[in-house]
């Protein structure tokens, strides 16, 4: 059915249908975010030998985050007097919209993908880069020193780590010869790229942690240094959208890593093919997600200068070298 | 494209470029890893050696047939060799100036950068001369421009230098954007960026609508390149930039950069628009149709350059306007499209290179000593250093176009073309009249040098580099003034530019 629709000429009807489907995904994602926050708290609680939410929210604190959301919704909305009002309002939207947009191109299973773009990977990289604007604008519009500093820091960090990120993924592109995420998955039929591209994977993973501003690279919003950073002045649902964006990115990035390096929906061995792709995808996806949570609870925060220098002096040269190593391997062995 | 294709190219024809490229990379690394205290002059000498080596290889490539590699994007023809030799010669002389540059707020901290940025700009010009494709042409142009922007602002703690660089960036970028916009239409009408293919496509252009579009693109390219040449009315940046930039950079901009500008003008205008038909195949080329526009620019450039130069008090601004005026003279040759156009432009650029670089060498010595750049600083130069004064006198006379110097023969060549073909009498008359106007300011400098008493009678110290430049330029100016055929015959016997364009 979807195939037919895709082949029909685009029009208002298609738009409505896509809209409904997209809305479904949005709700799923929102649900995911709600519970991934809970999961994060729980996981961290267990790792650090303390309890996660257990007082409110029914069994295992399942409704804890639901309550959180409601609280945010009901909070008073304050826009500081000295803030740049239009930008202040715009910033969370700019930060959030791209995070959702990138989901459009990720192939969850063989058939479950919204937009099968030829330049899917490039699309992801390009659109995710836009979030920086939201962060920077938010920091600037607040007219608060902490916010400004946080925004600037966040921007510097994000753009610095974007370079190794895009460079490291070149190895994958070289091997698959395509930017289409589906084709990249197909290309992993004989071996996941995590095996062929270990260096690229490590660089990509580290850079992705920094892009997500998660520990150990959570400087942009280090409470103890910046009083929360670029969103200091935000309250209620406006603040929530910055958070939401982060978690949606977490979702998207986990999915992307699954697709790029872990073979997407494909089974690790041929004989396991009978298990459906969605299951495989979910397993891998949750594993990656778990690693992110794991990292957060075990690592201390890095020093700001180390952080920046790490991107330029370590990751970038390694990524550049990896490109040529891959190219060489490819022309010698493939 | 496999390894075979790679090896099948005759890479030898790119040797000069490779030499420069490798030396750029080496110099960058040397500069980075050399101890801070070490004198960076050695880098300059290495650069000079590279330029010399490139020159020798370029000369040794002369006389061969036209070759092109890399899918016709890089083309080595006589035109390229002839102008590459000029560019390299000019760059070599500027390098000598740079090595001996020791102004008070000098380049000490940035000297290393200076050398390799300078070579990068040179590489850009070389690529421009040899490119057979709009893309490489544009890349070469930008390589030159971007390096020049930085060079102009290399004294980063000097306000004038900053301003000069800023103005250069803004004007340069706008102009290249305009030219690029014009080029995009050319591409659109032909579907290719290869110059020869474009020419072939355009020669059979039929649709009048397309011709109209082509006309617009011609004008845009012309305007964009006129900025680069500092032709009026797009010359406003030149005086400020020349004044603010360090003297060797000014010399580079006014000579090498300008030469490269003319190279690209000829390449694009002649190949692309010389072939474009106005009304179907075989009709009058668009270039001839548009000749008047070039003529207007040429006339305005000569008049504005020479007249505004009259009231300058800063020596570098004066020579900025002077070089604007010279661009005007050269544009006359471009306008006339006479049969000796290449020879006259080439020879004039040679003469201009010699005389202008010599003048900048003197300016560098004098301004370096006094710390300011006023024309009055030259007062009594004859007393302080007769040889320097006489050298400057000869160079100025050559710039003014008096017989017995290369400047005269250059102008003679251009007149010849202007009168020979359809007779651009008005343009030629403007050229002669403005030449007379130019006597005022050239001789104004002479008055300071020879007639006025010196405020300070201390002697100059003449670094080796300056001495070399002065000897080469003065001797060259006179030699080519008296025996111009030594240069012209070299051109004629070893190179056949005409075939590159009309065969």
């Amino acid at each position, binding site marked *: 059915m979807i195939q037919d629709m895709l082949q029909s000429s685009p029009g208002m009807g298609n738009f409505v249908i896509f809209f409904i489907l997209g809305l479904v995904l949005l709700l799923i994602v929102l649900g995911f975010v709600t519970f991934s926050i809970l999961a994060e708290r729980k996981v961290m609680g267990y790792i650090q030998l303390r309890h996660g939410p257990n007082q409110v929210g029914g069994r295992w604190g399942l409704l804890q985050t639901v309550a959180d959301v409601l609280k945010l919704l009901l909070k008073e909305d304050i826009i500081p007097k000295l803030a740049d009002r239009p930008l202040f309002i715009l910033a969370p939207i700019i930060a959030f*919209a791209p995070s959702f947009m990138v989901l*459009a*191109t990720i192939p969850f299973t063989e058939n479950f993908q919204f937009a*099968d773009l030829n330049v899917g990977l490039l699309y992801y990289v390009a659109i995710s880069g836009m979030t920086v604007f939201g962060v920077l604008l938010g920091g600037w519009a607040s007219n608060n020193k902490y916010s400004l500093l946080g925004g600037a820091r966040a921007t510097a960090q994000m753009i610095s780590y974007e370079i190794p990120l895009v460079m490291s993924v070149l190895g994958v592109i070289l091997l698959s010869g395509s930017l289409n995420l589906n084709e990249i998955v197909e290309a992993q039929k004989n071996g996941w790229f995590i095996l062929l591209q270990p260096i690229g994977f490590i660089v990509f993973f580290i850079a992705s942690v920094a892009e997500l501003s998660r520990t150990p690279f959570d400087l942009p919003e280090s409470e103890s240094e910046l009083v929360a950073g670029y969103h200091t002045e935000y309250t209620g649902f406006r603040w929530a959208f910055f958070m939401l964006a982060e978690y949606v990115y977490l979702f998207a990035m986990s999915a992307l890593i699954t697709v790029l390096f872990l073979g997407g929906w494909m089974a690790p061995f041929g004989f396991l093919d009978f298990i459906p792709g969605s299951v495989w995808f979910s397993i891998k996806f949750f594993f990656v997600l778990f690693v992110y949570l794991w990292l957060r609870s075990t690592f201390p925060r890095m020093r700001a200068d180390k952080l920046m220098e790490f991107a330029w002096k370590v990751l970038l040269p390694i990524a550049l070298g990896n490109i040529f190593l891959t190219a060489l391997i490819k022309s010698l062995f493939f | 494209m496999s390894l075979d294709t790679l090896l099948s190219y005759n890479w030898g024809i790119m040797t000069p470029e490779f030499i420069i490229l490798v030396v750029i*990379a080496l110099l960058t690394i040397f500069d980075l890893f050399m101890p801070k205290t070490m004198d960076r002059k050695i880098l300059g000498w290495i650069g000079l050696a590279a330029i010399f080596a490139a020159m020798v290889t370029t000369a040794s490539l002369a006389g061969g047939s036209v070759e092109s590699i890399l899918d016709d994007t890089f083309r080595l023809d006589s035109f390229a060799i002839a102008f590459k030799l000029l560019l390299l010669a000019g760059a070599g002389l500027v390098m000598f100036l740079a090595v001996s540059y020791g102004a008070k707020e000098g380049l000490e901290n940035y000297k290393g950068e200076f050398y390799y940025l300078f070579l990068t700009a040179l590489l850009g010009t070389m690529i421009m001369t040899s490119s057979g494709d709009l893309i490489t042409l544009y890349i070469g142009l930008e390589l030159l421009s971007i390096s020049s922007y930085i060079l102009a602002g290399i004294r980063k703690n000097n306000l004038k230098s900053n301003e000069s660089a800023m103005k250069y960036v803004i004007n340069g970028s706008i102009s290249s954007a305009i030219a690029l916009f014009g080029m995009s239409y050319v591409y659109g009408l032909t579907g290719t960026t290869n110059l020869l293919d474009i020419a072939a496509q355009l020669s059979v252009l039929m649709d009048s609508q397309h011709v109209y579009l082509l006309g617009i693109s011609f004008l845009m390219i012309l305007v964009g390149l006129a900025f680069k040449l500092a032709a009026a009315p797009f010359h406003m940046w030149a005086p400020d930039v020349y004044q603010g930039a360090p003297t060797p950079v000014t010399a580079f901009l006014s000579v090498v950069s300008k030469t490269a500008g003319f190279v690209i003008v000829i390449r694009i205008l002649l190949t692309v628009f010389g072939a474009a038909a106005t009304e179907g195949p075989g009709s009058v080329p668009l270039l001839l149709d548009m000749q008047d526009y070039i003529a207007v620019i040429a006339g305005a450039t000569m008049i504005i350059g020479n007249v505004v130069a009259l009231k300058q008090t800063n020596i570098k601004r004066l020579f900025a306007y002077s070089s604007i005026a010279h661009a005007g003279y050269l544009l006359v040759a471009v306008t006339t499209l006479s049969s000796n156009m290449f020879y006259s432009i080439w020879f004039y650029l040679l003469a201009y290179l010699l005389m202008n670089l010599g003048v900048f060498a003197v300016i560098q010595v004098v301004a370096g000593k006094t710390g300011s750049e006023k024309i009055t600083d030259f007062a009594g130069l004859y007393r302080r250093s007769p040889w320097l004064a006489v050298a400057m006198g000869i160079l100025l006379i050559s710039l003014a176009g008096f017989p017995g110097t290369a400047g005269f023969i250059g102008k003679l060549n251009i007149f010849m073309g202007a009168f020979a073909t359809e007779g651009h009498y008005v343009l030629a008359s403007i050229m002669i009249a403005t030449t007379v106007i130019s006597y005022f300011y050239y001789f104004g400098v002479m008055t300071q040098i020879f007639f006025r008493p010196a405020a300070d009678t201390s002697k100059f110290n003449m670094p080796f580099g300056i001495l070399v430049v002065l000897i080469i330029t003065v001797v060259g100016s006179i030699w080519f003034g008296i025996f111009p055929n030594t240069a012209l015959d070299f051109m004629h016997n070893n190179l056949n530019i005409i075939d590159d364009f009309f065969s």
Partner: protein
Amino acid sequence: MELLNIYQNNYLIVFVFLCLGVLLPVVALYLGKLLRPHKPSEAKLTTYESGVEPFHDSRVQFNVRYYIFALMFVIFDVETVFLYPWAVAYEKLGVFALIEMLIFVVMLFIGLVYAWKKKVLRWI
């Protein structure tokens, strides 16, 4: 025609996602407005500076380092413009492209080394 339709539909989906991404905050904030209290006061509207009275304008000049990193980003990010198509087409281009790209990246690397030695990469 079908390919074209698929192509266009794909981008229509992207557009839908954009709309959703913008609509969600707008709708949520609008709904929130109906629910949440609104009692502004002078103190609430001041800028937060750890409880101290705010002083000076907050929009101070950034440390110059931020700009330098921005410039570095511009340069390196745009260079990937050449790397991506190259990587995609690498199979067809072969060794020739490898060598070309090697030269390109060596130049890029020299740029990085330059910045490194000039202490541009040092934060603070």
